[in-house]
């Protein structure tokens, strides 16, 4: 029954899955509460530009995609702070620019193979040791933010002016949060796929919100859903040989629907 645990690729996928399940659902609560769902789509498509550059240069796409996506995340906060352009507008611009760059870069590489498919839809076969190391480091940093940054991010999510009047450096916090979300998206890309990442960020948090009375509860419930759905999704993906990202998202949607029905009663 648990024969899948004998395969190294499956061990890697499960380990990475648990970690990215935690990361995405943790940051997802801020994404949902700040109404930035579009950020997930924007950053994942920006990551596509970075991946394409990595493929063209024949190097590990991760090393290009991470700084590339971080830069876009910083640019989004910067544009809002300096020009007053709404976040969804700057995401909309940077999103398309990155995809355009990605398409041109990929077209330059004539002998391009089917690698992009796994980036678009997620694959449990593609998780490398590098991916796991980066994800693990990010998870440790993220766990630390739970103790040192969660409160001020929560405060600013509730009301940024109240947070500023309590001497919280909201702008610096926003840069940090966006950069960490950007890295999360890049490392989640292999398992969940570029196209589905925004849902992966949003659904656990949205489900948690339905049944929570406090933001703290919402965070904990979201994390539990994120981790559980990754494990279940990966196992189903293994048995039925279907893309992992799609299975995880559908499983999360099922939880969301069940919570919605429970709440309604």
């Amino acid at each position, binding site marked *: 029954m648990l024969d899948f645990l004998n395969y190294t690729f499956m061990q890697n996928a499960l380990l990475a899955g648990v970690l990215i399940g935690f990361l995405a659902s943790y940051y997802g609560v801020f994404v949902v*509460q700040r109404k930035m769902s579009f950020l997930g789509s924007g950053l994942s498509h920006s990551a596509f530009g970075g991946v394409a550059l990595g493929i063209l240069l024949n190097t590990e796409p991760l090393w290009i995609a991470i700084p590339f996506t971080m830069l876009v995340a910083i640019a989004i906060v910067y544009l809002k702070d300096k020009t007053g352009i709404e976040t969804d507008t700057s995401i909309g611009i940077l999103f398309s620019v990155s995809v355009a760059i990605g398409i041109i870069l990929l077209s330059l590489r004539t002998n391009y193979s089917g690698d992009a498919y796994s980036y678009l839809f997620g694959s449990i076969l593609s998780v490398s040791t590098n991916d796991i190391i980066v994800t693990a480091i990010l998870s440790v940093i993220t766990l630390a933010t739970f103790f040192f940054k*969660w*409160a*001020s991010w*929560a*405060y600013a*999510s*509730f*009301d940024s*002016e*109240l947070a*500023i*009047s*309590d*001497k*919280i450096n909201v702008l610096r916090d926003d840069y940090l949060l966006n950069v960490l979300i950007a890295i999360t998206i890049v490392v989640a890309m292999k398992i969940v796929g570029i196209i589905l990442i925004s849902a992966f960020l949003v659904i656990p948090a949205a489900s948690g*919100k339905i049944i*929570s*009375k*406090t*933001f*703290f*509860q*919402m*965070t904990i419930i979201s994390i539990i859903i994120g981790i559980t759905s990754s494990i279940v999704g990966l196992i189903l993906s293994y048995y039925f040989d279907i893309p992992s990202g799609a299975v995880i998202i559908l499983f999360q949607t099922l939880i969301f629907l069940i919570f919605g029905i429970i709440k309604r009663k």
Partner: protein
Amino acid sequence: MQNIILSAKNLSTGYANQLFLENINLQIPESSYVAVVGPNGSGKTTFLKTILGLKKNYTGELLINNEKPENVPSTWIGYVPQIKTIDRSFPALPIELVASGIKKNWVGVIPKEAKDKAMEILTEVGADSYAFKSIEQLSGGQLQRVFLARSLVRKPKLLLLDEPATGIDLVCELSINSLINEYNKKHNVTVIMVTHDWSAAYHHTNFVLLLNKKQIYFGESKSAFTDENLQNTFSHSGHHHDIKFGMKELVNA
């Protein structure tokens, strides 16, 4: 001679080509009750936000208890924002809002001590019965009380209220007014309240600031609402709004 809790000299806020508040000069003695009155967009909220240190683009001098806004400890000022600007979809309980006022940050798990303190102040403002009810389910007046508790729990020197009467019913309004009055007298808190309610300003406050981007009037409440002042505050060049002269009755009363 009373202490001056807030003093402004040639205070302007905004950008060179677009000022939201222009040339404010005033001195507010400690424990006074001040109403800020003016039409929409007259800079009332900007004035509060400049005091709070939220607007950094100001020129001139602004001192709160002899400190610049950026150096004022956040415990000195209690701030009740306009309730309509609060995101009620945020999953939170009144007790958490008050605890965040105590801790100056959001709190995941509220320590017992902070919980007791928060309950005490919520009881004082009459909001204890809904301390654990989701803020989404509270009425405007109830949320107003919670925010009042949140700012009072710090024992501030200065209490800033942005239109506490807007969006709540009259009974609520009267009881919140009397709460504020009581606090002002009992704890020597200086209150600065943005309001549309001239009659409340006339009857309850010591000082009135009339704003229409520029300072039209600052001084004793009883002599604030003259025809001329009201005309300058509420009319824009070109035509008159006769309704404003309805205040004459009140002023002569």
